[in-house]
């Protein structure tokens, strides 16, 4: 399995222009994504890929003027803008790792990331996806004034992840969306956010490496669905390693190649089929 993963990584290191996973996506024609496209054209390859490779070196990879914040290559295909469009909200449904993976590339590229209302955030997992813990700002319990906390965070951080304590009212949503548009930040809502242009959720998942009393969790193959308005009005589905054995998040190329197999190897597959038969 390790070789498989390294193959996946290899693909992204020499990502050619025509294989850019975002090139065909930006058809919606809203202002933000067109701008992003232009930017990409100038570079010759998607921004996300560049950032992924240069997690350590490029401090200026997150430029204030960029319309799109980079995401991990595995997630770029799912998002209509190929990254986190500044001024927008991305809702993530019930997956801690997906939230962390969304902000990982931006954080690695030098962006500060605020997290509000998630006292159980796994910082070690965030670090494994590529996020830089030293640029995380955590407010575990923002209390009833969480919209103010998020607004304050958005003044300093490019990305803010928030788990609202309750379903946010229309008024709160409008206010925060206003702050987002003015400041150019990105809000990742871990939970319900009505009217979010993109919603990501994990549809199915299968763990590998663990059996009936033996092994240990090694990796998880998950089908992530992106839904929403505009370009993602027709849901997009991708199989991802969430996480891969090294903790990162990568596309699952076994699924892409049409080989519907179970990632845990023969044992896990046999086990799964046994369970299905039972």
């Amino acid at each position: 399995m390790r070789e498989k993963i390294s193959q996946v990584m290899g693909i992204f290191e020499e990502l050619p222009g025509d294989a850019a996973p975002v090139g065909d996506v930006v058809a919606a024609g809203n202002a933000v994504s067109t701008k992003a496209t232009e930017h990409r054209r100038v570079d010759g390859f998607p921004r996300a890929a560049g950032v992924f490779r240069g997690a350590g070196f490029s401090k200026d990879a997150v430029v204030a003027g960029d319309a799109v914040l980079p995401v991990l290559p595995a997630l770029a295909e799912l998002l209509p803008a190929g990254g986190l469009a500044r001024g927008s909200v991305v809702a993530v449904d019930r997956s801690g790792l997906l939230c962390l993976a969304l902000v990982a590339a931006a954080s690695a590229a030098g962006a500060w990331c605020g997290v509000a209302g998630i006292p159980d955030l796994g910082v070690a997992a965030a670090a494994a996806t590529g996020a830089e813990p030293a640029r995380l700002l955590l407010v575990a319990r923002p209390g009833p004034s969480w919209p103010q906390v998020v607004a304050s965070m958005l003044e300093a951080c490019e990305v803010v992840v928030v788990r609202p304590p309750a379903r946010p009212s229309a008024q709160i949503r409008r206010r925060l969306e206003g702050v987002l548009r003015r400041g150019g930040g990105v809000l990742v809502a871990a939970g319900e956010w009505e009217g979010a242009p993109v919603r990501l959720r994990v549809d199915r998942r299968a763990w590998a490496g663990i059996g009936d009393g033996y092994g240990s969790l090694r990796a998880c193959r998950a089908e992530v669905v992106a839904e929403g308005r505009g370009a993602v009005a027709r849901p997009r589905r991708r199989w991802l390693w969430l996480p891969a054995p090294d903790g990162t998040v990568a596309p699952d190329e076994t699924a892409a190649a049409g080989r519907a197999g179970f990632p845990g190897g023969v044992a896990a597959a046999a086990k799964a089929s046994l369970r299905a038969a039972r």
Partner: protein
Amino acid sequence: MKAALKTGSAGEPARTLAVWCPGWPEEDTGSAEARAFGQVVTVVEDFCPEVEVLRPGLCLLGARGPARYFGGEDALAQKVAGAVAARGFTCHTGVAGGQFAACLAARAACPGSSGRPGEPGEPGEPGGSGASSVVVPPGGNRQFLAAYPMHVLAGPALASQLARLGIKTLGDFAALPARDVASRFGAEGTAAQRVARGQEPRRLAAATPRADLSAALEFDPPVHAEPAAFAAKGLAEQLLAGLAARGLSCVRVRVEVTGADGRESTRLWRHDGLLSALAVAQRVRWQLDGWHPAQAGRDSGPADEGSGGITMLRLVPDQLVPDEGRQLGLWGDDLVSGRVERAAVRLQAMLGHESVAHPLLAGGRGPSEQVVLVPFGDVRDARFPADRPWPARVPPPAPATVYPVPLAARVIDAAGAPVTVTGRAVVSAPPDALMAGDSPWLAITAWAGPWPVTERWWDERNATRRARFQLVTEDGIAWLAALERGRWQIEARYD
């Protein structure tokens, strides 16, 4: 001076000054009276910063350095005694080689020298002749001690044994051949004889005691936030001056506000030796704003000062460190930009210093130990570094959700009985269903474990003994569960 530099003749221990104030409660170190001894220690600290308090009423300091500065041991002993006496305490000082002899010298300085059963009956020297200090010259330890009865040194058993053998004074005991003492009385006897000979097995362990460096101001009548914040500037100046006089700096400042209605507000603010008095006052102002978010009577004048007023303001330095100055990076402190710092400080004003965390990866076996949440602005320092091997740690990948407080859970086998693990790490039956917290029962599709972990068995309070499991439930979520003392807990979730 030469004699003082060599730590005395014949293996005599380092010169020590003992400060003895008779009449303090000796056992009860927790009482208010005992704590008041801190005042004496404060006075003594003016002579030497490293004072070892043996018990209330008796403290020690190394005499070598201060004696050179204050013009000799005699002068030092008298100055210390005089300074403490000037604060209204009876005080006797003694200088000798080592703790034991110095304490006896201080006792000898007391003209009456009576009261306690352990008191020497006939001091070797005639006493301080009016001046309340006695200095035993270097090399004179053995001679000074020789006249003391045996029981000042040894426990009652050894003393009575020696007395029956005809050995009544320390001088007699010291004169015995060391080999014979060792063979007859063992290690205890050898140590006692070393002391009786004026030698000392134990070194002075100087620890910096905590002096009260806080600055406080009471308001009578109670005042509003605005005047209190104004007064905070003067208070902060006082605090910083006190710290600077001792060459100290603090990492954080604790601001304590007490209201007339009994409410209290305590916050920690980052200081790092960087804040001016004005900046500290600014933080007090923020705290007061956060404390009275909507006081109705705030602007309506002094009529209702009694209800929302502030009666006391106290600034306490926290985490004292030596002030070594602070070198800013040539290109600026690029890790935390000003923009982020401003936002973080504003959030801290709103929610409290500890509510805004700046995480740091640390070492540990469980996922909750692998991260330290440092309050923003504090020194980022992990007690256990992350780059050490942690055998038996939970294998990667790391879970995305780590519960700060483990979730209570129940795990049952196919027959519905709770799953248990024996002392030899054998599972009673394969786990079949899991109930984590309030969630409904979920069927377990795969599991691994048990991985027994016994941590810190040498430390009663922090010892843990648990068996970890990884469980995958039917909804595709994986859990890190632990069984400790028969109770199942969910430590983390892989989601």
